[in-house]
């Protein structure tokens, strides 16, 4: 390995001209460094620039500005067939006129690998994705999951330094998707190569990734580990996009390194939480974010800081959890409670108009910059 980073994007911009003639930046000054052997995800909704970024690494698109580096080498306008990366396409892009074997062998043939070696390596690749015995089938004769495996085998047989995966599980049903997530992750750990994975499914990204780049509007919003992304989102977009969150608008009353006191006008009360940015100042307009599962419903009557009386508007039993929607001085909050005790007694659930007490612990409450 010549470089610490498998792939690096330095200040990359990609502009497109829309059919209407407008110029849009699909990728807008993106910088990221993807380490060797890492499972790296780019997460965001459609149009956030994740797929365009991936395509620039693969070489299907060239940056308008900035540079893509693979193994420390600037790629410039290097065509895809000269890059040491391979792609698993969203639609699999299997060659329908070839058998499974021919599909997987294609990349090796292009390299001029000897026939006996091709046979051996294709065999091993198919074994890796558990498709031994399917060599002579055509892609149309396979299920969606099997086609997906062929696409993975076809890319991996080339032993790339980096495997690029563009929403590879998007077309599969939920159960199969979960299975494939674990399989892909296991495969990545076993092979020790870098995976760059594009998805819009946050759960998928959280499950599989070592690090995630959350993207929106062509920019990287946050690049961090799954735990950091979920527990310490840097802005409202990330807090909102990953998981669910309750947001309250307010103004900083006092601030130290670890704690900020925020006055919430809607509640006419102060809430204490952790500041998520270093450059916050007194009087700054901020957003307080608290996850539904981190709001605690406590015995009414307790009179400590951070306890608010709320009225139940609706409660939904969803098996493992109960979701309680409560109203707090005109502000709607969502609270998630785990159903830790098995019971059929409906009175144990929260009824409409029942008054409950909600506890916001400072360590569960995040103070975010308003963007």
């Amino acid at each position, binding site marked *: 390995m010549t470089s610490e980073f498998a792939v690096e994007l330095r200040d990359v911009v990609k502009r497109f001209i829309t059919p209407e003639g407008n110029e849009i930046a699909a990728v807008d000054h993106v910088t990221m460094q993807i380490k060797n052997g890492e499972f790296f995800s780019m997460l965001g909704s459609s149009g956030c620039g994740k797929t365009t970024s991936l395509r620039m690494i693969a070489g299907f698109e060239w940056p308008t500005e900035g540079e893509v580096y693979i193994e420390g080498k600037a790629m410039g306008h290097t065509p895809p067939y000269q890059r040491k990366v391979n792609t698993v396409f969203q639609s699999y892009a*299997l060659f329908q*006129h070839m058998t499974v074997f021919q599909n997987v062998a294609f990349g090796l043939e292009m390299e001029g690998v000897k026939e006996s070696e091709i046979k051996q390596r294709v065999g091993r690749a198919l074994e890796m994705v558990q498709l031994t015995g399917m060599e002579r089938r055509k892609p149309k004769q396979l299920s969606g999951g099997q086609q997906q495996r062929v696409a993975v085998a076809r*890319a991996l047989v080339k032993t790339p330094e980096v495997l690029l995966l563009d929403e590879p599980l998007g077309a599969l049903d939920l159960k199969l998707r979960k299975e494939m997530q674990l399989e892909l992750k296991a495969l990545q750990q076993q092979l020790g190569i870098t995976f760059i994975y594009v998805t819009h499914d946050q759960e998928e990204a959280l499950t599989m990734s070592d690090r995630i780049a959350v993207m929106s509007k062509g920019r990287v919003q946050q690049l961090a580990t799954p735990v950091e992304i979920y527990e310490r989102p840097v802005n409202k977009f990330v807090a909102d996009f990953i998981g669910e969150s309750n947001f309250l608008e307010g103004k900083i009353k006092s601030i130290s390194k670890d704690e900020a006191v925020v006055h919430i006008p809607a509640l006419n009360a102060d809430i204490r939480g952790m500041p998520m940015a270093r450059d916050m100042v007194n009087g700054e307009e901020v957003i307080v974010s608290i996850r539904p599962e981190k709001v605690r419903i406590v015995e009414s009557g307790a009179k400590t800081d951070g306890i608010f009386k709320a009225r139940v508007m609706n409660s939904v039993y969803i098996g493992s959890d109960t979701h309680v929607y409560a109203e707090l001085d005109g502000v709607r909050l969502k609270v998630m409670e785990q159903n830790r005790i098995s019971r059929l007694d409906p009175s144990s659930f929260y009824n409409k108009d029942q008054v409950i007490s909600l506890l916001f612990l400072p360590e569960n409450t995040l103070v975010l910059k308003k963007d």
Partner: protein
Amino acid sequence: MLQRLRESKSMQGALLALPTTLWLLVLLIIPLFLTLVVSFGQRSPDGNVIYSFTLDNYTRLLGYNTDCPAGQSSCFDPLYVNILWRSLSLAFNTTVIVITLAYPLAYFIARATPKRRNLFLFMVLIPLWTNFVIRVYAWMMLLRKEGAINIALGWLANLFNIPFAPLEMLYTPGAVLVGMVYEFLPFMILPIYTSLEKIDNSLYEAAADLGANAFRTFLRVTLPLSMPGVVAGTILVFIPVMGTFIVSDILGGRQVILVGNLIQRQFLDARDPTFGSAASLILMVMTLIVTYFYTRKFGFGEEIVSA
């Protein structure tokens, strides 16, 4: 009856196929049968058919004459065999040239932006708005001695002070070939375009990703996936070229006689429907044989990916 029709899918199918079946029966099967019967007949001196069973028409076509020069009981006359062979090779050459011209154009159209694609397809189809015969006459205007091409060449020669004599292009095999290629080009462009257009862009990207350059991608991915279009186009071009007589009539004059012209003349000029029928059937059999071997090798242009 109505109740049964409502329930039975096969009866519904039969009913839907009935009009076409009747049409084909009256206008294809019965005439074909009559042609077969007539082809075994003899021509009466006044040009009527005497129904009998003789293979004379066929042996004459294949060159074995019964009325030979004195002293010979049988002799070989290659006149008609040559015509058949000329038709076959012209159809073959036309098809090959049409593929060579149509494929790059279809490829170009298929890879254009959707808006321009429609414009190009429109341009391919525009000539078909004019009558077939008129289009062939247009070529006559271009190719004849005082035609547009010779005028242009003469003007150019004059410009560079080169001596120039008008080219004899009309009434040559080349003129017929040019006319055929022109007439049948759209029937090759469209099916090839259709199968090229269906190829997803991600397949080209996958090939590039796996290490194939543009040339190898074309050979290994584009070409095989567009073969159904080439096959369909070949069938659409080869068969009509084998039988058509208008192009050779107008652009070939008396110089280029094809089997189509032979048949036409037997019915209209020579008034020998028995010989004309035999020639028609030989043409049909030849076309069927070629098509049979061709489709056995390449299929009918259906999806090669079907499981």
